[in-house]
């Protein structure tokens, strides 16, 4: 199992999309090569959704959720980090699994808003 230490990429603030993109590229390469992966958050303290959108949420366009649950292990991820990640993954699943349907739903929301006027 390969190991990726997030602290070495983002420092203790896992907030920026740019850092998330670096993590994503590293993870995707390893998973595509068939390796299982341990993602270690030791020392990472602050979390925000742009980081996880890029680092983890994007994986759902390349791999299915069951595959990721089986092959990607999260170590030392605080409850705060888990909570943000959970929201990001739910949102990313919706985005990638039915992006057309999601866009349609957004359009319907606008239609409803317009009807409220």
């Amino acid at each position, binding site marked *: 199992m390969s190991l990726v230490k997030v602290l070495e990429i983002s420092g203790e603030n896992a907030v920026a999309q740019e850092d998330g993109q670096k993590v994503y590229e590293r993870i995707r390469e390893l998973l595509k090569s068939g390796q299982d992966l341990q993602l270690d958050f030791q020392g990472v303290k602050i979390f925000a959704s742009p980081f996880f959108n890029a680092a983890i949420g994007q994986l759902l366009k390349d791999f299915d959720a069951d595959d990721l649950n089986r092959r990607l292990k999260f170590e030392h991820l*605080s409850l705060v980090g888990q909570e943000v990640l959970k*929201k990001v993954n739910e949102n990313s699943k919706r985005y990638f699994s039915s992006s057309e349907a999601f866009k349609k739903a957004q359009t319907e929301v*606008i239609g409803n*808003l317009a009807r409220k006027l």
Partner: protein
Amino acid sequence: MNVKIPTINDDVSDFDRLFALWEQLNRQDLDITFDFSGCRFLRQNAVAFLGGLIRLVRYLGGNVRIDDSTFIPDVANNLAKNGFSGIFSGKAFVRSGNAIPYREDGESENVSLIAYLRDQWLGRGWVHVTELLRNRIIGTVWEVYANGFEHGESGIGIFSCGQHYPQLRTLKLTIVDFGVGIPANVRNFLGEPNLPSDRALEWAFRPGNSTKPEGMGRGLGLDILKQFIKVNKGQLEVFSHDAYALVDSGTERYLTRKSYFQGTLVNISLVCDELHYCLSSEISNEPLF
């Protein structure tokens, strides 16, 4: 031109006074003196906004002088303590009391911004929270700045200031940009030029809604902040164009108002001894995808 700065609290009508100043001064090549003789005090919203307004006037080719001879002692002390006078009048920065420094961010610089939120805003001993909760608050508020940088197109950056009110047991932070505003971004993205401002702002608060959705899921920042404010009995106000959002534990309202400000202003209030954000202890047992 002499511009009188009034007393500015942070009720909605006080924001209208700030936005009226923006309407008056958002033009090219002005030569202005700020006169504080009618000002009894300024809250953090006014400090952040006036700092940004000075930068805007200068960006538009004008000049702003601050007539510090018009300060009453309380205003002079406040503006010295939060660093405003140091930046704009060359006065010594006297950090003390309940003031939290005025801050300008020209670009997203995460390390110093997070240090500000941790050490200057939250970490002065007036909010008793676990490290886990403190980090949660910092990440949540950081998303407001990230939204401003990603969507605001301000040109002159983002301006913020905090204040601790011990008698109210409240900690506040105002973050303002002078960019294009949320309703404009939403209307452009949806191709709905007539969408009312309040509806556009409501759309922006919905989880997963983003005006930059290319490539990955986004659009969680405002929802995460909203949920945090509700659970913690805080208050969140967002002003952008003529739209106004008010969120607290029992309220979520989106209104179109008469006063107008082109950018976006976010005003956050946390009740210091009510912070009890609950993290689900079960979450770690669930699959993360």
